[in-house]
């Protein structure tokens, strides 16, 4: 006798990611197989149920996904050292489109809409610092496109600072040519009602090194997805993130690290703190080790520190390995409250509970701040974290009053 069971009989129900009802539908299995296009209309409409949107407040960013975007050039401030050039280039410039192609509708919308790209090009072989600041983008939905090119054997730190009001869809391309060393720091300190959907695409050449640091401290919605391709043999990337979400803030980062070349090394470490009702963070870490990436050494981790009730942190590490010949690969994720033993230790030395908490949080986030490698910016980040914590102190005091 043949017994036929249906998935429903076994308790399986249609997946909420969407698309499952269509006959013959096969979900994308491998991270590199995702659809990509620079054209907005090539992507299906976003319902908010898709796996890459379901953790995002789609309603709040709908104008960036589907609306018209102002793609005109904007004001920025930068000190330009020798060995660095910054210029607006045309859409069809050879610098544009080298690092990646949009994998979601919002990214494609921004790509379709920008007039000119801001091209930051580093040739200096002596280490140079460049800070590009934009603080007056305005709340009209707009698109931006930035291309950072670290020419072969160059050595630099590029800091992208964003503040003020913004409703911004953008793509940032990062090309690290052979033998170059590049640190990119993307700092988001938007005004409270701002929203940003940003995709960073990086490609790292032979024996080149990229350190990529995302710091999100304010804004209503900041979704910043870095995709880094370790294309060249012996290429190396360190991807760091630091976020501190308060009530009413949604900070999301979907990190994709793709090992393509042989003997590549990747480290991903994102750390976040959450405080206040409705503080929300999302971290998705995809690591893909391709068939040719023998000798790969890869590790990714995410840690979240929950400071008050009413917050939510999603943390989803994914690891795909397509070759048997790797040096090592691992992932870790942990979300929790304060370690009571750490508090006890500090308090047993006479340090008050509030001060002990402050030390523990600052210590927790410092691990990322210490990676910046620019003492001026590190000091600024420390004071920004202190300022965030003074908010918690207020909350705690109010809660404890007897």
């Amino acid at each position: 006798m043949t017994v036929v069971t249906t998935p429903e009989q076994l308790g399986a129900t249609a997946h909420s990611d969407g698309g499952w009802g269509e006959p013959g539908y096969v979900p994308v299995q491998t991270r590199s197989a995702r659809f990509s296009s620079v054209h907005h209309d090539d992507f299906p409409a976003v319902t908010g149920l898709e796996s890459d949107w379901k953790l995002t407040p789609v309603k709040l960013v709908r104008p960036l996904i589907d609306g018209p975007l102002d793609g005109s050039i904007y004001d920025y401030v930068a000190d330009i050292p020798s060995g660095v050039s910054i210029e607006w280039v045309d859409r069809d410039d050879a610098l544009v489109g080298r690092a990646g192609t949009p994998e979601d509708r919002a990214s494609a919308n921004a790509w379709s809409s920008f007039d000119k790209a801001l091209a930051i090009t580093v040739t200096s072989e002596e280490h140079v610092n460049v800070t590009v600041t934009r603080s007056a983008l305005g709340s009209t939905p707009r698109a931006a496109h930035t291309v950072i090119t670290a020419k072969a054997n160059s050595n630099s730190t590029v800091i992208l600072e964003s503040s003020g009001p913004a409703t911004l869809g953008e793509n940032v391309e990062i090309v690290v040519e052979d033998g170059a060393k590049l640190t990119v720091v993307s700092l988001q300190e938007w005004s409270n009602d701002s929203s940003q959907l940003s995709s960073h695409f990086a490609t790292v050449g032979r024996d080149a090194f990229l350190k990529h640091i995302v710091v999100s401290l304010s804004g209503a919605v900041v979704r910043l997805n870095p995709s880094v391709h370790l294309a060249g043999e012996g290429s190396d990337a360190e991807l760091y993130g630091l976020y501190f979400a308060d009530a009413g803030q949604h900070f999301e980062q979907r990190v994709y690290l793709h090992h393509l070349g042989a003997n590549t090394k990747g480290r991903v470490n994102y750390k976040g703190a959450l405080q206040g009702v409705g503080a929300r963070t999302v971290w998705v870490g995809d690591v893909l080790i391709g068939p040719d990436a023998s000798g790969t050494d890869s590790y990714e981790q995410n840690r979240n520190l929950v400071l008050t009730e009413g917050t939510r942190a999603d943390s989803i590490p994914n690891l795909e390995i397509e070759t048997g010949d790797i040096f090592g690969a691992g992932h870790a994720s942990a979300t929790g409250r304060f370690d009571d033993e750490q508090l006890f230790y500090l308090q047993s030395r006479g340090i008050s509970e509030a001060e002990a908490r402050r030390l523990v949080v600052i210590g927790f986030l410092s691990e990322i701040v210490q990676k910046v490698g620019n003492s001026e910016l590190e000091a600024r980040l420390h004071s920004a974290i202190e300022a965030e914590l003074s908010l918690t102190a207020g909350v705690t005091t109010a809660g404890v009053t007897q």
Partner: protein
Amino acid sequence: MSVLEVKDLHVSVETEQGTKQILNGVDLTIAQGEIHAIMGPNGSGKSTLAYTIAGHPKYHVEGGSVLLDGVEVLTMSVDERARAGLFLAMQYPVEIPGVRMADFLRTAKTALNGEAPALRPWIKEVAEAMKSLRMEKAFSERNVNEGFSGGEKKRHEILQLELLKPKFAILDETDSGLDVDALKIVSEGVNRAKEANNLGVLLITHYTRILRYITPDFVHVFVDGRVAEEGGAELADRLENEGYDRFLTDTSVA
């Protein structure tokens, strides 16, 4: 001169098997400048006594009191106890990532004194204390206990003891896991702190080894959550020869 008194202390902890009674009426009196060794078999409640006096939230006081110069300690928060003059050198000090040792020590000193120590003399004092404990200078740049070996952690505890200058210190198995050189260095530190600050010491240990370097004025044998026998340093010698067997009753083995 200060006095620390433990009176009829009863303490329990929550375990997966339910509430477990650990201390069953401990009585102890320690004056400043005295060294009291608490010895006893594993599981007799020695560490529970240490952590209860320090105020660890895991331990529930069912009865009794701990008085420092007549003032109840058990109602104080953990940091208040430290500011009142109590110090616990822990057996397994926890790592605190991202907090530099130098910053931690200065923050603790500031909290205890109510004002920040003058920078130059403080740096000098820290450097000298580290030198006498044979700790590398680079230590102060490292994060608190992070990546420290067992011996380094113990030295760090004694470094704090010397710098924070409490009235009473509880040393929870500070000798465990130390080789003989480290044991001597750590013991010298304890003796220095006693001489310099007229420190009262509650030295908790399983073995008599550390008592070769730190001479106790009193020895208390701890069994089954209470003091079973008391005496002078000679009692430690007897334990060295006989072990704890004669104290182990059927009930305590079960």
